[in-house]
Every structure is written in structure tokens, then in C-alpha cells.
């Protein structure tokens, strides 16, 4: 460790604990010195501290050593007393305030960044006012009578040469009743070393008189104790001292110029010598002398065992001494005082061992005497002595602690001393790098005086920063504490300063509460100083304080707004935190060649539109039309990346604003900030824009927002409730061509402050409408547009499309198109996403009323299906060439809607059109319409077909209908088979099926039909098949029997798409039948939320296979009952079997007859184990479709009859017959059985093995099997005994 004397504390002690010299002077002496702007005392002061006085000294134990550094403290007699607290405080206050001003003005505008080097250095040269303050605080405690080092050791009596009767003046200068209380109070020995100084002012004339007086003096007071001092020797013009010795000693350096202007070098040297002599020849030896004497006395009375005992006894004796807080009064003659004096003198002469031993000695005495103040004082000195000796830190600290706490115990009496002791202690700790401890001591010495404690706390905070490792958080905390104190005694500037320093700790941390508090107060205080701009800056930091309580939020916000108001101008700031803008939510919607019929259309994924428009857009078409490359030429390369928008058409931006607070905030004037430049040359304007923004965004923005000649922006006002979030749509409409870039958004917070947000600085997620496809979209491009001159834009909508509908609901809609512009459009095309739901009708349908137009007209030849083949395939629909859309009268076109299947579907349709004039960059546009329709389950229809056993190619059809709705009831109206070769007929009259003509909610019915293959029938010539009844009314004839023509548009179209949806490829299959079930909703009073109940509903079942047992169908033909006399012979019965091959290939069929009836049911048909009785639930997806479980009946029959016993019979003839069956042809083959006894026989015991010769038949689909096996069906024949 370094030499204690060089430490700050060492310095301080060598300054403060030094001999005091009392100065007594006559007014005339003062006058003459005042000519130099100095009091006499000040005149001498600079020459009282010697850096190398080099005086030989001897310790009490005659150890010789030399004093080098030495200092005298001069005081006028009047000042030798406890200083006045009030005055001292005032002075402190003033100093601090000045410091405040000074430092504050130097404050850097931005928050200081904290790094340790910087920090520590900052502390190393602590603000000088700290030191000054501490010094003052130490001084306040001086001239106490409980310690001796402030006691004057000598006294200078100064008399001027032109005082009359100087000798007497000398005498009565030092008359006891004028002396300070210390001396005549008995606290110290009044007869101290006196020095008689005759001061001669050379301006008063020559020194003869002076010398005369001087000799007289010497005779009276003795030669050694007198000296003569001549000053003001420079008679002529005042002299300037380049190094003015007095300046440093004056409180204010301002008027240090004229100091000592009449003192020439001789004078100065004279003063120097005077003081030098005084100290080296008189004071020091005298002190040394005194030390020796005292030491002898002390050792005589107190050293040695006997004395110790005696002392103890004695002390015990005077136990009853008055117990005042500072113990009994000790006269200077008392041994205790003398020991103390001895100690202090020794200390002042650096004989620390001696000092320490005596302090030790005395402290015990004081302790026993309960003379606490003195005790504390001695402890204090012991601590310091230990320090100066640089031994046993423990001891040193213990003593300081002891002293400090004792002082503190004394309360107000010991307060100043406590402070002084504390400061010394702190210095001691600092000297040993125990900053943390130092800090705690600072904390302890901040008394009830607020200002005082503020300063102490601040110093404490520095200590925390300096300790290793530095405790920055505590540093911050104490800064805040001290800041509060400063604020209390309105030292605002200090408060701000400390808080700002505290910020440096919090910077970048998430301790929001603390951060908010600090920022807020800094803001407030700046505001109170009228520095509103800074205030606003700080307050803005904490606006979005969602974590704070509602009250706090209100406070912050209101204060902020007030401050802003006070600034008197509309503040405009970037990154204003209220409200919060959700960048990722930003979505740019613009229309180039794509236009949207509704906002919802804009939200549909671009990919979906693309797939829809693929065929329509020329850019995708393979045939390259000549104007296509022209288009690509027109758009400059660099712009090919940036978006295109049309003059006069709005570009919309959706932005989400969020209010993080719990209190509502009014937002007004929300608008986009845009820049429009006439030139299409991007690159250059980009440059100047970017650097514009670099240098000052705000102005740039303001300028932007001001100019609105070339475009117009929409303004929105809204108020955000607590925690509310709203999506706002802003729009900008360019009016002239050029390039438009959207820079950001501006808004006004509760009418006072304007916030900006710059889009391009913040990089949003690119969920721009077309962003998904062009993933290489950079945000800048997303906000940059090339404005082209205005072109026509179609508006369109679909009239009376229901939002909700029941499955099967069939409606006529109208597409309405308008073209407000006065340019023509041509080549309209349209494409619809869900042809199953929406098809394009014929214009004449518009006139004809609905549903009548669906019904059969007698004359109409039902081949409309072929009439418009364009509709049949789901490709693009071309509007007729002559369609022109212009002006206000709309263009109408019919559409058909049919709710194909339940669920929520979104219908998209895109209408393509080309712009008349060639010059435009964009040659075509598409209008995109989008609608959501919710479709509820209605009727659930399923069919089961099984071959009838009565007749070839005749089938039994079972129709199951379930009403799935909750409330609606429907009327099943008509069943039709599609195509012309299936005839259906009811088995029972309709009214037996539907007694009450309608199907209630949840009700299920099933009814049976026979189905004839009319083609076959015609081939057989037993019936004239003029007109095939392919339609079947299910309502009693009574009611209006208009028959819906299902072979007519739109029904046939919908049916077509239905069958396509089922992805059946082969149309030509003759064994499949399609049904269409028409039903109507009865106008039921209890309406189920649906605006208008459906009036016609169609349900389609496609490709129901009749060929359940494979392509081969057969029929056993023969008698059912016959009589035979078995007594005569066994009975032979001839039967015929008709076989029909319904496939396109020749079939080889083998009939195996099995005689043993037991082997009845070995064979099974491929699907025999399907449980009959349950059918499919309503499909939710287009693909899954009702599969009809065929030949369920057969199995049921089989089960039913399998019980009854079968008596044997034999097949006569070959047990197996082979037949060839040409495609679509029938043969017949004879069969014969022999029966031996009467009874009923089941002839099902035969098997047909069939095989298709695969040639000829397109073996494309696996659904059709190539070969199979069929169990004979039940055929009962009863043979009776003929009598």
C-alpha cells in the first residue's frame, strides 16, 4: 500500500490537523493590507504552508527526525470558535446550486453510456464541489473543546507603525476579556506563545519611525518575540503577479487580479521569512518543548504500575461526577486534558507512536468517566493515527466505527463530529479500495438534512460503481435515491443529472417499472424547467406501458399530452409508441389487371385465382398473340418487379392498430404517407428518397404528407378502447401516371401529437396479396407502384345468391356487370370455380320465369344439352362477341345455382375482359367475384337396384329418402331417369307412398319402382315402345303436373357435373342408370332461418349399376306348378333358360347343375357379406358418393327361404353346358329335371360360370370383373300328384 501521507486522507489530515495560530491585528494594519484587497490574515496565509521546511525535531524519547512538510492555520481571534451552522449550511447550499447550474449546462444531450474506465476516472476527479463540500463539513466541526488540535499554539499580535502608542496597543490587543472562550473558558492554557509584529506601510513614508518603535518593542517584549514587517513597498504603479499566491486561497477567483498589487518581491520575501522563522524558530521548538514537559508529567503520574492502580482508585472515587453527556468538565490543567494535548501535539509533529500511546491511555479514562464525546474524539484520533502509521487496519476501522457510533449516540451534540468522523473514515476505506463499505458509511452519514443526504447518497452511488466488481444496480438505485432528495430540496438540475446517470444503468434492460419511473420523472422535471422537447422525448419512452396500472397509464399519458401542449407546436415524431402498429398485419391490396368484386375476393389465395384464370389469360395461353410481347415491352425491365396500379383506382392498405393501454386513446387523421414522382425512372428517385430519409425523416415525411396534388389519401379517425385492436383500411388514389410509393403511415394521437411509422424501415412479413406467389418480393417493392393511365374497370355482382341453402336447391341467379368508365371492353370470358354449384345459363332464361322454364314443353325436342356444348365441359365460357358493356345500364346474364352437397363452400368466378384502346400497358383485366354459401343437408337419397326375376332386363329399384333437416318438410315431386333407354314405373300409387304428400323433418320413406331397359324392349318386339316414360311424377295426379325436363339445361348440365364429380369415365356403359329426384319444399310456416325456402331441389344419383351379378343376366322360364302321376313314372320337366350378355364382349357361359341340394349356398357373390339395412351417411366431401348396395334383396330372399327342406331331384342332361354369348345379345338353352315325388322344389342348385373374352372390350377399368360365378336364384316348382 502507498504511503498514507500521500493518500487523499493523508493530504486532508496534513491540511486540517495542523497547529493553529491566532491572529490579533489593529484596524490600521488591516487598512494597509486591504490596499492589496486582502485582509492581513489572508496576506499571510499563502506563506504558512511549507513543503520543505526541514526542521530537526526530537521525539519524547530523543529520537531525532526532521520535519519537512509543515503548515500553520491562521485564524483571527474572533474566528476561534465553533463556526455558525446556519452560515455554513447557506454556503453549502449556494455551492451546490452553482455546481448544479454548471454541471447541468455541460450535460450531454444523450444519456451517458456507462463504462467502468470512464466512470472511475469521472470519480477520480470528483466534481470539485464534492471535495469542497466535504471540507466544509469537516470544518463545521472545528474548535470543539473536546479535542486539542484546534487549540491555538501561538498568537501573532500585529500593530501598525502609524498607530499611536504602539506598545500599549500591543498590550491591550491581548487582553483576556476579548479573547475567545476557548482560552479564557479554561479549556486551554491561555498563556500561549505570543509574537509581536510591527507592520509598516511604506506608502506612509520612510521607516524611521517604525524602526524607532521596533527597538522600543524589543526592549519591552524581548528581542526574540518581536519582528518588523514592511509592506506596500511598490510605491509606483501596481504590479501584476504572474503566479498570484493568494488566488488559490480566495473563495471566489473572480477578483483575484488586483490581489497584492502593492507588494513587491521584497515584501513577499519578507513575509516568507517572517513566517518561516516564526514556525521553525518559535512554534515548532515550542511545541517540541511542550511535548517533552507533558510527557514527563504524564509518565510521572500515569506510567508504571502504581500510577495505574492509583489512577483507577481515584477514578472510582470520583464516580459521582456530574454525568453530563460530554462527561465531567476537564480543566486544561487536568491530567486528562494534558494527555490529550500531548497526543495532538505529537500527532501534529508526526510523532504518531507517541500520539497513539497517549490516545490509548486517555481513551480508557474517558470511557470510565463516561465522557463520551471526548472518548469518541480520542477514538477518532486513534483511528487516524493507526492509518498514518499504516498498521493494523482492523484497529483503525474499529476505532473509526467506535468513534462514529459514539458520536451518533450523542445525537445533535455529536452530529457534526459524526459527519466529520464519517468522512475521514470513508476516505480511509477508499484509500484501501473498500468502496462498498465506504458507500455504506456515506449512507449512514446522510442525516436529516435532505440536501446533505442527497449529496452523500450520490457519493455513495459512485462508490458502488467503483467497487470491484462494480455494483451498477446499486449505483443506479442510489442515484435514484439521491435524485429524489435533490428534488425534495428542489435542486431539480441535480435531480435530473442523477436520474440520467441512473438511466445509463437501466439502458437496454427490461426492468420496465424502474425505467418508466426514471424516464417519467426526468420528463416531468425537464418540463418544469420549461425544456419541453427533451421532456417529450423522455416521456415518449414510456407511453406503451401496458404493464403499469390503469391509474399510472392515465397519469403518464395525460402528463405527456400536457407537456406536448406546452411545447405549443404540433409535435411530429417517428416511432410514437401509441398506438402499436402490427407490422406483420400490414397487407397491401391493389388492382392491376386483377380487380376484385369484393374485399372477400381479395382475401382468397392468389394461387387459387391463378389456377382458375389460367385458361383465360393470354399470358398463359400457348398461342402467342402479337400484342402479348408488346405488353412485355411496354413495362420497363426495372419496373417488372414493382407493382402496377391504375390512376384513379385506390390502392388499399390494411393496418392493424393496437392499444396496449387499458385506457381508451383517440386516434385521428390516420393516413398513408406517399410519394409520387412523375418520372417512371425509379433508380434516381430512389437515391434521393433514401438519403432524404437518412438525414431527417420527419421533415421528409411532412413534405410528403403536404403535397397531395398527384394523389389523394383517405383519412380515418377512430378511438381505441382499452386493449383494443382494430384493422383499418387506408387507401391512396393516384390521379396521374408515374411512380407511387407508400412510405408509411401518419396519425394524430388525441389531437396533440403526430406519429409517423415508416414501412420500409421495418420489414413486414410479405403477406401482400400477390406476395405468396412471388416469394422474392422485397418489402420495398411491395410498397412501390407504377401508376399507369386509367383504364376501364368492370364492376360486377351476382344477384339473389342465397347465403344459406339446402342441398339440392336449384335457383336462377343473375350476373350483373357494369362499366362506369367510357371506354369499351371486349372479349369477355368467364370461368367458375365450382361448376357443380354454378353454371352459366341461356339469356332467354332471364325472360322466362322460374321454375316454369324448367318444365317440359310439349314441342321442345330435348336436346338443348347438345345445343350449348361449351357449358357441358367446364372450360371457359365466352360471352357472345356483340356484348358491349357501357354506361350506367347494367349488363345481365343468367346463372344457375344448385347446392350440390352440404358444407361451406366459397364460390369463385373470374371474368376476363380486354381493354379497347391499344396504347395502354394493361391490355386485359379480370374481375374476381367471390361468395360464400353455406349449404345444409336436406334430403338424403339412395337407390338399390336388384334384377327382377320376372322378366329379362327388368329391375326392382328401391328408393330411400331421408329428410335430414330439422324443420323443413319437402315434397318429393318427380323421379326421372337420365337418358332415353330406361323406363321407370311405380309399383304402388304415389298417394300410398306419401299419404300426406310431404316428407316431414327427420322422416324417412322408401318406395319401389320397376326399371325397364327400353332398348332391350324395343329389340324384343312384344311391346311398341313409342315414347319411353323416363319421368315419373310422385305426386297424385290431382296436383299441377308440370314435369321438370331433366334432359334440359340447366338440370342436365348439373347432372353432367355431378357424374363427372363421381369420376366415372365410361359414359357408354349400358348397365348403369342415372336418376334425378326432383323435390320441392312445401311452404312451411315454421321457416328455418332460411330467407327463402327452395322451390325446386334436384338430387342426382349417377351410374347405379344394374348389372349386379356381372354382365350376365339370366332367367329361368318354365311351369310353376304341374300335375303328374308318379305312380306311372317319374316326372320330367322341361325348362328354358334365357341368358343375356350386357357387356361389350362375347361371353362364354358354362352352366353347372348340381344335384345334391345340400351344397346350396357355397358360392357367394363378391359383395354378399355387406350388411343390408344400413346405407351411407350424407357424404360431406364431393368425392365420397352413395354406393348402392345391389342385390341385397337376393340375399335377404335367400336367408328367408333357406329354412324349408328341399327334397332331391336330378338334373337330366349334361351336368354342364357351354354357351357363347355375343355382346348385347341373348340366347336361350333348354334345361330338364326329373322329379320322383310330388312336392315343391327349389331349382337354385346350379351355377353359371362366365368369362368375358377380353378382346374388343377396353379393359381400362378394374371395376368390371372379367369372369365370375353366379349362384342360381330360387326358382320354385310345385309338382302335384294327379289323381
Amino acid at each position, binding site marked *: 500500500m502507498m504511503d498514507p501521507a500521500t493518500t487523499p486522507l493523508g493530504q486532508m489530515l496534513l491540511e486540517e490537523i495542523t497547529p493553529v495560530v491566532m491572529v490579533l491585528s489593529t484596524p490600521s494594519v488591516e487598512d494597509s493590507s486591504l490596499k492589496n484587497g486582502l485582509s492581513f490574515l489572508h496576506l499571510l496565509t499563502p506563506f504558512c504552508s511549507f513543503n520543505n521546511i526541514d526542521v530537526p525535531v526530537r521525539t519524547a524519547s530523543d529520537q531525532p527526525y526532521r520535519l519537512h512538510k509543515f503548515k500553520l492555520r491562521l485564524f483571527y481571534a474572533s474566528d476561534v470558535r465553533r463556526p455558525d451552522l446556519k452560515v455554513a449550511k447557506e454556503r453549502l447550499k449556494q455551492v451546490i446550486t452553482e455546481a448544479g447550474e454548471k454541471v447541468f449546462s455541460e450535460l450531454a444531450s444523450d444519456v451517458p453510456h456507462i463504462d467502468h474506465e470512464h466512470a472511475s476516472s469521472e470519480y477520480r476527479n470528483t466534481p470539485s464541489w464534492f471535495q469542497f463540500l466535504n471540507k466544509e463539513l469537516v470544518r463545521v466541526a472545528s474548535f470543539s473543546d473536546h479535542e486539542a488540535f484546534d487549540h491555538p499554539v501561538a498568537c501573532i499580535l500585529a500593530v501598525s507603525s502609524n498607530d499611536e502608542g504602539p506598545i500599549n496597543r500591543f498590550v491591550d490587543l491581548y487582553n483576556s476579556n476579548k479573547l475567545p472562550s476557548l482560552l479564557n473558558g479554561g479549556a486551554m492554557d491561555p498563556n500561549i506563545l505570543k509574537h509581536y509584529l510591527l507592520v509598516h506601510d511604506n506608502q506612509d513614508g520612510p521607516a524611521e519611525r517604525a524602526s524607532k518603535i521596533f527597538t522600543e518593542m524589543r526592549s519591552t517584549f524581548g528581542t526574540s518575540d518581536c519582528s518588523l514587517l514592511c509592506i506596500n513597498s511598490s510605491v509606483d504603479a501596481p504590479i501584476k503577479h504572474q503566479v498570484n499566491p493568494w488566488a488559490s486561497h480566495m473563495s471566489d477567483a473572480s477578483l483575484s487580479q488586483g490581489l497584492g498589487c502593492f507588494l513587491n518581491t521584497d515584501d513577499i520575501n519578507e513575509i516568507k521569512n517572517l513566517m518561516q522563522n516564526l514556525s521553525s524558530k518559535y512554534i515548532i521548538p515550542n511545541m517540541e518543548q511542550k511535548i517533552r514537559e507533558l510527557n514527563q508529567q504524564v509518565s510521572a503520574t500515569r506510567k508504571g504500575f502504581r500510577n495505574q492502580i492509583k489512577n483507577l482508585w481515584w477514578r472510582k472515587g470520583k464516580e459521582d461526577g456530574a454525568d453530563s453527556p460530554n462527561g465531567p468538565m476537564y480543566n486544561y490543567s487536568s491530567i486528562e486534558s494534558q494527555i490529550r494535548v500531548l497526543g495532538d501535539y505529537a500527532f501534529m509533529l508526526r510523532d504518531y507512536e507517541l500520539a497513539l500511546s497517549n490516545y490509548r491511555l486517555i481513551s480508557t479514562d474517558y470511557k470510565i468517566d463516561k465522557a463520551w464525546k471526548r472518548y469518541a474524539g480520542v477514538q477518532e484520533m486513534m483511528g487516524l493515527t493507526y492509518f498514518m502509521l499504516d498498521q493494523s487496519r482492523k484497529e483503525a476501522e474499529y476505532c473509526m466505527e467506535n468513534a462514529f457510533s459514539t458520536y451518533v449516540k450523542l445525537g445533535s451534540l455529536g452530529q457534526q463530529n459524526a459527519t466529520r468522523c464519517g468522512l475521514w473514515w470513508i476516505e480511509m476505506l477508499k484509500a484501501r479500495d473498500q468502496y462498498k463499505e465506504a458507500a455504506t458509511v456515506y449512507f449512514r452519514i446522510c442525516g436529516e438534512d435532505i440536501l446533505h443526504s442527497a449529496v452523500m447518497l450520490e457519493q455513495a452511488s459512485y462508490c458502488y460503481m467503483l467497487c470491484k466488481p462494480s455494483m451498477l444496480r446499486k449505483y443506479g438505485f442510489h442515484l435514484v435515491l439521491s435524485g429524489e432528495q435533490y428534488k425534495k430540496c428542489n435542486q431539480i438540475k441535480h435531480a435530473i443529472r442523477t436520474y440520467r446517470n441512473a438511466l445509463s444503468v437501466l439502458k437496454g434492460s427490461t426492468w420496465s417499472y424502474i425505467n418508466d419511473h426514471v424516464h417519467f420523472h426526468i420528463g416531468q422535471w425537464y418540463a418544469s424547467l420549461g425544456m419541453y422537447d427533451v421532456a417529450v422525448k423522455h416521456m415518449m419512452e414510456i407511453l406503451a406501458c401496458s404493464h403499469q396500472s390503469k391509474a399510472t397509464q392515465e397519469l403518464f399519458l395525460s402528463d405527456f399530452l400536457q407537456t406536448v401542449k406546452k411545447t405549443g407546436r404540433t409535435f411530429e415524431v417517428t416511432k410514437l409508441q401509441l398506438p402499436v402498429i402490427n407490422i406483420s398485419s400490414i397487407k397491401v391490396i391493389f388492382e392491376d389487371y386483377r380487380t376484385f368484386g369484393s374485399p372477400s375476393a381479395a382475401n382468397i389465395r392468389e394461387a387459387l385465382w391463378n389456377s382458375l384464370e389460367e385458361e383465360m389469360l393470354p399470358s398463359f395461353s400457348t398461342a402467342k398473340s402479337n400484342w402479348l410481347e408488346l405488353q412485355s415491352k411496354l413495362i420497363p425491365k426495372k419496373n417488372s418487379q414493382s407493382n402496377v396500379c391504375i390512376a384513379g383506382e385506390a390502392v388499399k392498405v390494411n393496418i392493424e392498430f393496437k392499444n396496449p393501454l387499458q385506457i381508451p386513446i383517440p386516434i385521428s387523421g390516420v393516413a398513408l404517407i406517399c410519394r409520387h414522382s412523375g418520372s417512371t425512372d425509379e433508380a434516381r428517385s430512389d437515391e434521393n428518397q433514401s438519403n432524404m430519409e437518412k438525414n431527417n425523416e420527419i421533415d421528409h415525411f411532412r413534405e410528403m404528407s403536404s403535397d397531395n396534388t398527384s394523389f389523394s389519401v383517405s383519412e380515418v379517425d377512430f378511438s381505441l378502447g382499452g386493449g383494443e385492436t382494430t384493422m383499418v383500411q387506408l387507401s391512396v388514389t393516384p390521379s396521374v401516371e408515374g411512380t407511387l410509393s407508400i412510405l408509411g403511415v401518419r396519425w394524430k394521437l388525441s389531437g396533440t401529437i403526430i406519429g409517423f411509422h415508416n414501412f420500409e424501415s421495418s420489414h413486414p412479413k410479405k403477406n401482400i396479396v400477390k406476395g405468396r406467389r412471388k416469394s422474392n418480393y422485397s418489402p420495398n417493392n411491395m410498397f412501390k407502384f407504377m401508376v399507369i393511365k386509367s383504364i376501364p374497370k368492370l364492376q360486377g355482382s351476382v344477384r339473389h345468391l342465397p347465403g344459406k341453402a339446402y342441398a339440392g336447391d336449384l335457383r336462377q341467379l343473375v350476373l350483373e356487370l357494369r362499366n362506369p368508365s367510357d371506354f369499351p371492353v371486349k372479349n369477355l370470358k368467364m370461368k367458375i370455380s365450382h361448376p357443380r354449384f354454378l353454371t352459366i345459363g341461356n339469356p332467354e332464361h332471364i325472360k322466362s320465369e322460374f321454375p316454369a322454364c324448367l318444365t317440359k314443353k310439349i314441342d321442345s325436342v330435348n336436346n338443348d344439352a347438345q345445343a350449348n356444348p361449351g357449358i357441358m365441359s367446364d372450360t371457359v365460357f365466352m360471352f357472345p362477341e356483340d356484348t358491349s358493356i357501357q354506361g350506367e345500364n347494367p349488363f345481365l346474364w343468367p346463372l344457375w345455382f344448385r347446392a350440390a352437397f352440404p358444407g361451406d363452400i366459397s364460390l369463385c368466378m373470374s371474368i376476363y375482359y380486354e381493354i379497347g384502346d391499344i396504347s395502354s400497358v394493361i391490355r386485359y383485366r379480370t374481375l374476381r367475384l367471390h361468395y360464400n354459401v353455406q349449404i345444409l343437408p336436406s334430403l338424403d337419397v339412395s337407390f338399390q337396384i336388384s334384377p327382377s326375376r320376372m322378366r329379362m332386363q327388368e329391375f326392382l329399384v328401391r328408393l330411400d329418402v331421408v329428410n335430414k333437416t330439422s324443420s323443413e318438410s319437402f315434397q318429393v315431386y318427380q323421379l326421372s331417369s337420365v337418358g332415353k333407354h330406361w323406363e321407370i314405373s311405380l309399383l304402388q300409387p304415389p298417394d300410398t307412398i306419401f299419404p300426406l304428400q310431404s316428407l316431414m323433418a327427420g322422416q324417412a320413406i322408401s318406395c319401389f319402382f320397376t326399371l325397364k331397359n327400353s332398348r332391350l324392349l324395343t329389340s324384343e318386339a312384344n311391346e311398341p315402345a313409342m315414347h319411353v316414360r323416363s319421368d315419373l311424377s310422385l305426386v297424385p295426379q290431382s296436383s299441377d303436373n308440370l314435369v321438370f325436363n331433366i334432359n334440359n339445361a340447366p338440370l342436365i348440365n348439373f347432372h353432367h357435373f355431378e357424374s363427372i364429380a363421381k369420376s366415372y369415365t365410361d359414359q357408354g356403359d349400358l348397365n348403369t342408370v342415372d336418376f334425378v329426384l326432383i323435390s320441392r319444399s312445401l311452404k312451411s310456416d315454421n321457416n328455418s332461418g332460411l330467407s327463402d325456402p327452395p322451390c325446386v331441389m334436384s338430387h342426382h344419383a349417377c351410374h347405379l349399376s344394374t348389372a349386379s351379378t356381372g354382365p350376365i343376366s339370366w332367367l329361368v322360364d318354365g311351369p310353376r306348378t304341374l300335375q303328374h302321376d308318379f305312380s306311372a313314372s317319374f316326372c320330367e320337366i322341361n325348362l328354358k333358360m334365357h341368358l343375356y350378355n350386357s357387356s361389350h364382349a362375347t361371353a362364354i357361359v358354362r352352366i353347372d347343375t348340381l344335384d345334391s341340394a345340400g351344397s346350396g349356398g357355397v358360392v357367394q357373390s363378391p*359383395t354378399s*357379406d*355387406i*350388411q343390408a339395412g344400413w346405407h*351411407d*351417411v350424407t357424404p360431406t366431401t364431393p368425392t365420397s358418393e352413395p354406393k348402392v348396395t345391389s342385390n341385397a334383396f337376393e340375399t335377404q330372399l335367400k336367408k328367408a327361404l333357406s329354412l324349408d327342406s328341399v327334397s332331391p331331384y336330378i338334373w337330366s342332361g349334361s351336368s354342364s353346358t357351354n354357351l357363347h354369348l355375343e355382346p348385347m345379345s341373348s340366347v336361350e338353352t333348354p334345361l330338364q329335371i326329373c322329379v320322383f315325388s310330388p312336392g315343391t322344389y327349389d331349382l337354385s342348385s346350379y351355377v353359371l360360370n362366365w368369362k368375358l373374352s377380353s378382346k374388343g372390350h377396353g379393359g381400362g377399368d378394374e371395376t368390371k370383373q372379367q369372369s365370375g360365378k353366379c349362384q342360381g336364384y330360387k326358382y320354385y316348382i310345385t309338382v302335384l300328384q294327379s289323381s
Partner: protein
Amino acid sequence: MPPVAPRSGDSIFANLEHMNAELFTLTYGAIVRQLITDLEEVDEVNKQLDQMGYNIGVRLIDEFLAKSNISRCVDFKETAEVIAKVGFKMFLGVTASVINWDADGTSCSIVLEDNPLVDFVELPDNCQGLHYCNILSGVVRGALEMVSMKTEVTWVRDMLRGDEVYELNVKLIKQVPEEYPYKDDE
């Protein structure tokens, strides 16, 4: 021959290789979180979770049948019970109960008081609409499909959304035929 009586879930669980649930729980959680970040849309996440569950179910069923020597389940009703009582217990160590069957026995609810997937889980506000346990529904669906029952499995109640239990509605769409000859004894 009569089918061997299915063993109780606990007994299987007892002698099944098992481990403490934390790894399982946390892994699933991490997967869900990752899916959300990758797929962005919650519905998509639900879909994927269900898909994953389905695949797992498809694989898990064999082990299930083997470990709990349950003969083929024909009846949907019975199957549901087994899944709830045995399946959940032996894999997740929790028992589920089957409630509110509908009239024609094609739809019921599997109810769980708790399940290891959701320990520690709290749905953030931006993930409402997420069926956190959707993998379970997938598993059930997948498993059932392997025993030739096509089902529709949907969440009815979810504790993560403040309901008091987890309820999984299982609805039989159709019972597709077995591939191999089907012995029906007359």
C-alpha cells in the same frame, strides 16, 4: 372357439415397458410448437396432428391387439369400450370412459379426466382454435380403421379451453368389409 377375455388395461400397463411421462409430454409439446411455427395456420396444425395420429394409430393397433390378446372386434360398441378402457390405460396410463351412445350405436363419446399430453400446457391467446390433443383423435381414427371401422373423430370438450373434461366424439361412418373370407356360423 370363444375369444380370450381381454385383459384389463392396468395389468397390461403393469408389465409393459414404460417410462416417466415427462419426455413424452415435452416432446409432444415441442412438436406442436414447431408445427405452429412452420405451418403458421392453426387449422393446418390441427390437420397435421390428426394425420400424424392416424399414422401412429395404424401402427399401434398391432401392438395393442398383441399385448392385450383381444380377438378381432366386430361390434363397434365393444371396440369403443376396449379402446377406452384398455387402449388408453395401457399406452397413456389413464383410463377413459365411454358415454352417451346414440340410438343406433354408431356414435359415442370417449371421456378423459386428464391425459399426459397436456401437463404443463397453457394455450396462448393466439392459439385458441388449436386442438392441442388432436393427435389422439387421429390415433383413435387410425386404429379403428385398421379393424375395418371407418370413423369420424371430433373434439367435443377440451380442458385446455376451460371444459371440465376431454371429450372425444367417435362416429362410425361405415364398416368396410374384411379382405378375407368372413366366417359366419349358422
